[in-house]
């Protein structure tokens, strides 16, 4: 399954400044974990950020092991710093 992953702040920097990265997921059930592994394989900087971020699925925070479907809006969020 192919998915676009939206990246922000430190995760965007880790992906060489790309706001969206398209990942190819080969697991039988693709999850947020699958997405993270795909990003780590492509961008080494993601390895040192493991555990820091949260998954956003269709505009909601969801557990990293949530199953993903084609067409889902997926984002990886760094700890938030509004205000």
């Amino acid at each position, binding site marked *: 399954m192919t998915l676009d992953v939206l990246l*922000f702040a430190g995760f965007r920097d880790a992906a060489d400044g790309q706001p969206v990265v398209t990942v190819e997921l080969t697991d039988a059930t693709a999850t947020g974990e699958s997405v993270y592994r795909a990003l780590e394989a492509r961008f080494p900087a993601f390895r040192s950020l493991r555990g820091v971020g949260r998954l956003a699925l269709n505009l909601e925070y969801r557990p990293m092991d949530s199953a993903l479907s084609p067409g889902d809006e997926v984002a990886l969020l760094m700890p938030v*710093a509004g205000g």
Partner: protein
Amino acid sequence: MSAARLMVHLGPEVIDPAALLAAVADPAAGAVDLFLGIVRDHADGRQVTRIDYSAYEPMARRLLADLAEQVAARFPVAAVAITHRLGTLAVGEASVAIATSSAHRAAAFEATRWAIDRLKTTVPIWKLEHFSDGTSASDEARWVSGTFAPDLPV
């Protein structure tokens, strides 16, 4: 009391405190409380020159709306207005505003406090802080480390 009026905004526009106070005013409300978060000139011993605010906008708008609803569910407020700015802000500019109104002051104070504390650990907004070592040529930037509320799914 009728349902609380909820107003949220996310955008580059300069925050207008008078407009926010007017927006939450209510004949039944004897108290209005306004919090402004302001860009300050220092952080971690460094001199801050400006801050760039960015967001995952569709999700941030949704969470700001959810936050206003949660405030009204927890506190007997007549109205809630929450605004967060995006873009480059100079020292002294307001980045966030929370205004609440209630019949008596306790609820307005507590609602405003709860709202800003919750916003800061849930809404997907980030800040890139530009700082200087004091010389005119110096301009470095770093993402301010944020925090996730402990109850968010992991």
